């Protein structure tokens, strides 16, 4: 049995699966249910400053896009930070941490951008004996209009400043939660590091309108005929989150900085991918909000089974193993030549590979062989693009097979070269480096 125990900034949890700061972590009753179900930790729903709590809309807060059979693929919300009194939240955090001392209890915070506000909230939160704080510099909706959330996260100087205040005013580990609503994620991550933050977590939600109600001619969710952009999350955002995670993990300035991965984690496999890119924990929200807390059983068992199969005893055994394999396009090996191969035994003859290639790509898949419906790759046309693999409804029916060095690519008529050669030295590159290098 693989050991899933996690130590992130000294915060220990029995597994790397934390519930992200969101509706599932807003109240004692929910978090208690989560811990009983087996979740390793939570980031309590974002607290604001002392005073009258924020108010939420009383109409719909969520929107979604669905795939086949209404499988939820993308999720959007316009809910704000906790709308319950600060003291109630603090009491509940303290009670839950006491009842579940082995679980990670991190508290998310969002207060106005002045030192006194941060100092005050940090002092109040420390009293709960929680394990750490996460600075919510991410929410793109509502609070950002008041100069908080992503309004801070989009300005690296603010991130650095607030992170520094927090490190000054608390002994607790400080995690900075980043917004993806920015051009280059490395800048806010570097700012967090410069400010002394112990870790970053990402991604927060992406500004989004999930759909337009064509009867009301208004974005959804619609509040009395109007809508406002929300924050997008769920399986659809995972690719964006993985890329941003990798960018931070391989940036020389932030390399090695602990990362809590967030964004569409739905299964054990998603979690393993984030960890392979260097994450210490993962945070989950949409999957729990879609299926309930029981999914933790699939996640822990799946991760453990896979680690056993691969011979990884602990999470550290594979953490970050994929990071060195993320590179710039210019360093990809141009000598590597692949051709699509269709397994005729698995092929169900739907023809989607053919029409996709024929209409939109390279006319490299025949649809007829000796007058019979049959789909076969024309190696002399195939550029190895992988489109057919992705549109094929049968997994592993079409695979990309590398050509052996020394063989002739029938498309180019050139001999496949051994070894490695990339764009930086390619003769077509006007800025190619001199071969002598």
């Amino acid at each position, binding site marked *: 049995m693989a050991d899933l125990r996690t130590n992130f900034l000294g915060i220990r949890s029995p597994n790397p699966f934390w519930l992200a700061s969101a509706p599932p972590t807003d109240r004692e009753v929910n978090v208690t249910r989560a811990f009983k179900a087996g979740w390793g930790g939570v980031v309590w729903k974002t607290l604001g400053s002392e005073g009258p709590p924020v108010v939420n809309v009383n109409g719909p807060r969520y929107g979604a896009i669905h795939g086949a*059979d209404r499988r939820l693929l993308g999720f959007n919300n316009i809910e704000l930070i906790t709308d319950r009194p600060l003291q109630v939240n603090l009491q509940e955090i303290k009670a839950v941490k006491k009842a579940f001392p082995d679980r990670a209890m991190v508290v998310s915070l969002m207060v106005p951008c002045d030192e006194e506000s941060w100092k005050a909230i940090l002092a109040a939160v420390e009293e709960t004996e929680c394990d750490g704080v996460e600075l919510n510099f991410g929410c793109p909706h509502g609070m950002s209009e008041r100069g908080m959330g992503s309004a801070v996260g989009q300005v690296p100087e603010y991130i650095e400043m607030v992170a520094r205040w927090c490190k000054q005013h608390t002994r607790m580990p400080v995690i900075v939660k980043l917004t993806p609503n920015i051009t280059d994620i490395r800048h806010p991550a570097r700012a967090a590091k410069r400010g002394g933050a112990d870790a970053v977590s990402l991604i927060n939600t992406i500004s989004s309108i999930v759909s337009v109600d064509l009867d009301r001619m208004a974005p959804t969710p619609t509040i009395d005929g109007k809508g406002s952009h929300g924050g997008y999350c769920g399986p659809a955002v995972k690719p964006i989150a993985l890329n941003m995670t990798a960018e931070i993990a391989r940036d020389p300035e932030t390399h090695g900085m602990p990362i809590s991965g967030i964004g569409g984690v739905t299964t054990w496999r998603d979690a393993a991918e984030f960890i392979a890119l260097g994450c210490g924990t993962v945070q989950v929200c949409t999957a729990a909000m879609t299926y309930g807390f029981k999914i933790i059983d699939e996640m822990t068992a799946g991760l453990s089974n896979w680690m056993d199969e691969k011979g990884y005893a602990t999470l550290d055994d594979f953490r970050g193993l994929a990071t060195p394999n993320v590179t710039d396009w210019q360093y990809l090996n141009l000598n590597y030549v692949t051709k699509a191969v269709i397994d005729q035994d698995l092929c*169900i003859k*739907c*023809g*989607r590979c053919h*029409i996709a290639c024929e209409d939109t790509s390279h006319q490299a898949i025949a*649809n007829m062989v000796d007058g019979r419906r049959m789909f076969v790759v024309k190696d002399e046309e195939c550029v190895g693009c992988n489109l057919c693999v992705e549109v094929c409804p*049968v997994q592993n029916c079409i695979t990309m097979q590398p050509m052996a060095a020394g063989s002739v690519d029938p498309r180019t008529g050139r001999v496949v070269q051994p070894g490695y050669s990339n764009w930086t030295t390619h003769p077509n590159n006007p800025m190619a480096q001199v071969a002598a290098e």
Partner: protein
Amino acid sequence: MSANRSTAGIASGRLSTAEYTANFGDLHAPLDRHEAHVEADRCYFCFDAPCQTACPTSIDIPLFIRQIQTDNPMGSAETILKANIFGGMCARVCPTETLCEEACVRNEAEGKPVKIGLLQRYSTDALLDRGHQPFRRAPATGKRIAVVGAGPAGLSCAHKLAEHGHEVTVFEIRPRLGGLNEYGIASYKAPDDFAQREVAFILSLGGITVETNKRLGQDFDLASLRADFDAVFLGVGLSGVNQLGLVGEGELGGVLDAVDWIATLRQTPDKSKLPVGRRVVVIGGGMTAVDAAVQAKRLGAEEVTIVYRRGQDAMKASLYEQQLAQTNGVLIRTWATPAELTGDAGQVTGVTFERTAEVAGKLAGTGERFTLPADMVLCAVGQLLTPGDLGGADALALSGGRIVVDDERRTSVPGIWAGGDCVAGGQDLTVSAVEDGKQAGLSINRALMGAVATAGAAHAAE
């Protein structure tokens, strides 16, 4: 109401009202919106889709299913009806298991095709329920066409011609329109008077005049039609039936032609009034045999046996239909041919069969016999074109007793087209008849309007 399943002889009212209602209601419940969307999501939108190729009317199945997915049932129905104006009935009666659904690539993937028939019904029902008219007639051409027979072939042809702006007169021998849709197929496949609702929709396009109770050769003849109209389409079906050729046939009570028996059943709203035998023997192996046997069972017959002279794989009824019969409690016996009818006091009491075998590729009796007791014998051994159907028009070339047509459904006589069950080389399916009518309509239009005009009209109609 003293009769029950075991009441001897032929009796009506063997079942309770509730049983009759259940037995003659919808064989398959229609899909509701949620079910339709779940099922539509399974379609892969194949390239050059095998289901479409398998459809005799070439309905663009991937497109109409995608239109269901995108919540556009009216557009979906239009896609269907453009190719097959009887899309609603075909959704109910097509042997999809040997056509579109057999070709579905999901069979290869997981052995379960997309339920194309039920999806087609979902869309076409939605359109009929809404009363939406997706077609518009092209400007009037002044051409007049006579269509003989208001079955699927005739009405399909009439609709296509009306769409192109022609004036059509349909002559029908029976009081109601629809042909076998109204008089032939099993009740539970098209309950709630669906055949008439569909005919009303088809006629609602306009340009089609109907004359019922008009018999070719009696009330009018081919010569007069050719003189009075610019073109003639024959969709007269097969009004004659093959005989068993046994002593007592036509004399003994209880020996009935299955086609007539089903027609009576279809035209009797109160099924409890329909007499049925306690022991029923159905002779034949086609759809009519299955329809007759299953309906006999559902009317309360205690024992129903289908006897077919060859093996089950040679039966014209699809495997699905055979299994439908079997799950309804019908026993299918094969490799036996009727040899003798036995009777008592003018009523049939049994059928003696001779076992058969294939010897050197030919069917032959083995000499071994067995007798099945029966108080009702339904003969479903095939229908045929009788000379009366054509009003004695022996000028039409026939093959195997049916009218010879070319690819465009032109007969050997200029100006006369034909389609449906009455033509040679067909599949004897509703959907094939619809295709015949459609192709004949297009051909007539081309012939009357000339190639150039046709291109424009077809464009306008689409």
